[in-house]
């Protein structure tokens, strides 16, 4: 980027390359407010708490900043949401500064005192505790059983707020327009109708939140004008006066300029975070809804690309200021603070036309000078999408070591239609978080639990017991030594899965229920279609569409294992069931022959139908069990294979597998990526294996990571070929792919001298993280995968 703002952007982004701190201001204000509203209903308490907090949190503007809105007083910090659950700090207050993953700056004594006050108040009334009290014991025992990773009730946040608010509407009508909508709805109420009486409570509280957000913006307007008075720099003075004017105008009123539009979004986004922060808050289709402002100003000569890119870069940098302090257990699942604040670009518009425009390019370019972890770029690719755009995105992915997600419009439209979305809504989809398909302002599609599939297979081969410790986690499905056919194994496996899924689905669904009923987010809800009309929180059946997806993890291991059993035991007769179980029990020690036979069986990722279809069979079995179930807030249960970074921690529970994987090693990463090092037949074979899965039925997405060496992209021709393969994969039935483009030498060097590689980005699961922050075992896993693929 040849940009006048390059140095400022450089300074701002460098503030983010630092260990995050814990801020107590939001948590304290929220707690204080709750103490003042004892006895009132949740709508009112939440709205008042937001109001008090927005009045209390410090407003800060750095000399380099052009956008207003900070989440904490730190450049990179975590708020506390004690009303959800921060009780883990009772035992982990000091641990968060020394644990192997996701470490924070130590919380100093005075702040610890404030935290203890919160802990004392919330001990018996935090949402997690309320939830635990509602669950039957047979469900609760799975909170940390290792079978349902990430299904546990979230720490310190609205679990995964993987949604995209109706920012286009905010820009069109402003908070004032939304307030009018609420007032109109109140005017229509007939308070003799009991439902309307309840609606009134929601709508009144919504008005409080709406006003609080406007006042928050005015605080920034005031701050900017005060700073303008104090500065001696005439240029900065001009900037501050403009920012002050803008913050006095938006988000309250409609935006008229590109700058106003971006600031309006930033303010709304900041408030949404403070109200109920969670991962995956998405900015939506930025290149579409911001384009009219851009185009108008470009034509009028009032906006330069330099300035537009600077604002976009500053928006990206801002998202990196938010992290979320989790407990140690969860930090293994969401290693590297994946806030995944996506922007979506490209794809088609609601008329099915190519939607790529100049802004699509600018949003991709802008990240070249940012290169941080939290802001993800999602590129929608449709058959009509110009190659020049896809190629530019590949070049940026290469430069950023992979930080771009490529999505198939063709597959995703089929998925959404399959789940009953209207075509116009479907065409407007975005990807939120890692790989969740959502419609901005209209759907609440959220990921749910990780399901440890290899452990379920292990239980099917061990009468429902976990081999590691003999714990009876599932039903008795018989002694596998007596199984006579492949069908016997599949049946035992199906029973193990069905039993667990029937626990996992309501368990996670109840979590969504808790948010909707007891911790409504009124400000955020009013940026969706539905909640105002229904008078209900967005998570409580407020929106037009809702899905909650369940993520089978390690399915490639299960598919490889079942294929190995089918071939070696039941087709070739080279191994008996006794021999197989003996080998698994011994972790293959002294059973090298069995290990060899099993390892030589066909492996997923090499375009071999035999095993690829078994992987698909396992996924479709999950679909058949899970999708008929309904979740709280009338959300549909769906299936989206994923493992996040938990492929390492889930693996610690799984003993030797029939695919030849030895005990406690990591599971397959991603969700549908072939097991590390087993795809040895070239990229086309890998693409074909993955595209063969029935992605249309995996309706909330799946995760597929591929690794390439920078050498594979070192010429124009190779990049074109890369694009050709990528597009074929997306057109052939693939859903999503992202790349890790690094070499092992760099990673080794970073391990040795972490200080010098603090900003080395790598892909973990579907998000980017700083390599040096990952912890040694995950670092090793990444290096090993890479080494195998390059050799």
């Amino acid at each position: 980027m040849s940009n006048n703002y390059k140095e400022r952007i450089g300074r701002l982004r460098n503030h983010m390359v630092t260990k995050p701190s814990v801020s107590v201001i939001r948590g304290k204000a929220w707690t204080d407010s709750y103490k003042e509203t004892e006895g009132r209903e949740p709508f009112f308490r939440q709205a008042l708490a937001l109001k008090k907090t927005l009045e209390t949190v410090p407003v800060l503007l750095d000399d380099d900043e052009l956008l207003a809105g900070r989440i904490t007083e730190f450049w990179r910090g975590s708020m506390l949401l004690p009303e959800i659950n921060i009780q883990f700090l009772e035992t982990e207050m000091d641990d968060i500064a020394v644990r192997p993953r996701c470490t924070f700056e130590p919380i100093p004594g005075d702040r610890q005192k404030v935290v203890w006050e919160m802990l004392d108040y919330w001990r018996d009334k935090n949402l997690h505790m309320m939830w635990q009290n509602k669950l039957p014991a047979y469900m609760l025992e799975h909170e940390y059983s290792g079978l349902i990773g990430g299904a546990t009730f979230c720490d310190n946040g609205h679990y995964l707020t993987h949604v995209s608010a109706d920012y286009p509407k905010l820009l069109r009508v402003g908070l004032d327009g939304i307030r009018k909508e609420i007032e109109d709805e109140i005017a229509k109420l007939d308070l003799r109708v009991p439902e309307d009486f309840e609606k009134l409570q929601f709508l009144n509280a919504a008005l409080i939140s709406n006003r609080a957000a406007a006042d928050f913006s005015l605080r920034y307007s005031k701050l900017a004008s005060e700073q303008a008075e104090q500065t001696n720099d005439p240029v900065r003075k001009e900037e501050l006066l403009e920012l002050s004017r803008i913050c006095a105008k938006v988000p309250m009123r409609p935006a008229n300029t590109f700058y106003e539009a971006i600031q309006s979004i930033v303010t709304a986004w900041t408030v949404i975070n403070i109200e109920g922060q969670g991962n995956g808050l998405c900015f939506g289709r930025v290149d579409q809804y911001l384009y009219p402002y851009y185009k108008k100003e470009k034509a009028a000569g009032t906006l330069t690309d330099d300035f537009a890119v600077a604002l976009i870069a500053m928006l990206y940098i801002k998202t990196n200021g938010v992290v979320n302090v989790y407990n140690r257990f969860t930090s293994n699942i969401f290693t590297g603070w994946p806030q995944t604040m996506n922007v979506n670009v490209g794809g088609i518009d609601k008329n099915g036309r190519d939607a790529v425009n100049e802004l699509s390019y600018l949003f991709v370019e802008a990240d070249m000078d940012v290169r941080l972890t939290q802001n993800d770029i999602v590129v929608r690719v449709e058959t009509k999408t110009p190659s020049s755009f896809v190629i530019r995105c590949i070049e940026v992915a290469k430069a950023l070591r992979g930080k771009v997600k490529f999505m198939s419009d063709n597959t995703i439209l089929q998925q959404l239609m399959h789940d009953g979305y209207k075509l116009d809504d479907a065409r407007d989809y975005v990807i939120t978080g890692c790989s969740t398909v959502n419609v901005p302002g209209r759907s609440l599609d959220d990921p749910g639990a990780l399901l440890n599939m290899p452990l379920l297979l292990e239980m099917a081969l061990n009468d429902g017991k976990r081999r590691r410790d003999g714990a009876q986690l599932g039903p008795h499905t018989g002694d596998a030594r007596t199984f006579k056919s492949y069908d016997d194994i599949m049946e035992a496996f199906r029973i193990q899965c069905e039993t667990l899924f029937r626990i996992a689905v309501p368990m996670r669904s109840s979590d969504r229920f808790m948010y909707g009923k007891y911790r409504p987010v009124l400000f955020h809800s009013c940026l969706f279609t539905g909640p105002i009309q229904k008078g209900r929180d967005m998570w409580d059946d407020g929106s037009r569409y809702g899905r909650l997806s369940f993520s089978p993890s390690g399915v490639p291991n299960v598919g490889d294992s079942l294929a190995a059993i089918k071939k070696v035991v039941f087709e070739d007769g080279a191994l008996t069931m006794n021999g197989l179980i003996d080998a698994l029990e011994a972790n293959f020690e002294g059973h090298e022959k069995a290990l060899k036979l099993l390892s030589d069986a066909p492996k997923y990722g090499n375009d071999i139908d035999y095993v690829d279809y078994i992987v698909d069979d396992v996924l479709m079995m999950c679909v058949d069990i899970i999708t008929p179930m309904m979740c709280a807030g009338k959300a549909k249960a769906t299936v989206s294979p994923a493992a996040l970074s938990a492929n390492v921690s889930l693996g610690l529970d799984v003993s030797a597998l029939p695919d030849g994987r030895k005990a406690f090693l990591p599971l397959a990463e991603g969700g549908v990526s072939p097991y590390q090092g087993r795809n040895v037949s070239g990229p086309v074979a890998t693409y074909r294996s993955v595209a063969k899965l029935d992605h249309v039925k995996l309706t909330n997405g799946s995760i597929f990571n591929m690794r390439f060496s920078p050498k594979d992209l070192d010429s124009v021709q190779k990049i074109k070929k890369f694009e050709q393969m990528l597009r074929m994969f997306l057109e052939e039935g693939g859903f999503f792919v992202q790349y890790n483009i690094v070499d092992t030498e760099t990673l080794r060097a970073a391990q040795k001298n972490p200080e010098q590689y603090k900003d080395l980005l790598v892909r973990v699961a579907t998000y980017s993280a700083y390599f040096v922050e990952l912890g040694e075992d995950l670092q090793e896993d990444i290096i090993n995968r890479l080494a195998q693929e390059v050799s």
Partner: protein
Amino acid sequence: MKENDAVGLSSLIFNIVHGSTVDGWGVRTTVFLKGCPLRCLWCCNPEGQKKYAELKYTADDCNGCGNCVPACPKKAISMTPGRDAKALIDRELCDNCMICADSCYVGALASFSKQYTVNELFSEIERDQGYFGEDGGVTVGGGEATLYPDFTLALIEKCRKAYIHTALDTCGYVTTETGMKCLEEADLVLYDVKGLDPDTHVRGTGVSNELILKNLRYRDSLGKEIIIRLPLIPGYTDSRENIAREAELISGLKSVKRVDIIPFHKYAEIKYRQLGWPLPYVFGEDFPEAREKSVLEVFLKAGINAQIGG
């Protein structure tokens, strides 16, 4: 050739890469046939030289169990003494029967290749057709594909019928009539030129370059596309004089679309070890990057479309 004949033909294949970006135009599926008439000192696919199956022994993977010792009918395997025992293979006695590979449970002993019929190989290629796009296709290389002239010709013809672009990656030492037919029929030929000085060529590759250059001119006369590949080998092909002569030769050819300069590399070291062969002495050398660039300059100045790497 009749379809039925093609079914029966088979060949030893030592590698298939689905999605190569370096073996011709576009995205390609590259197949490597085992067996080559040349014995280049710098060979980067030594497992592709012999026309028969060969035992691959990866000492690092050997766990010292000793199962292979009694399994070998030729008594060619013994164990090194001591705690970290490893299998030791007497390659003089070994006849590559592969019986020991079945007894090796850690995969340290295995065959370098697998037998494919034309139809089996075709079905591996056909699957990838969607990824080939407008200019990609199959590249048949090795080793030297024309050592299996009937097989290779049948494969080329079968691909052609399926509208799959065919490339032949050849050393040019083609001696049979059917082999020449392969050279004629392939849509694209990747043609190795390993130096123009006849004596140096014999020293480096074991054969004269006379036939190779004759065949190159013949293919060129057909007006069908050629990509020339020039390995840069220290002491063999990298002299200023040789480079200048190669540039001059290529300038006079009409069908050459590009020249790929392939600097010497050592990625094949592990394969020499797995074959139990001594490392060729040229492996001691490194090729400086600055030299690559200056060689490239020579071709570009002569108006030839050239690049470093495939």
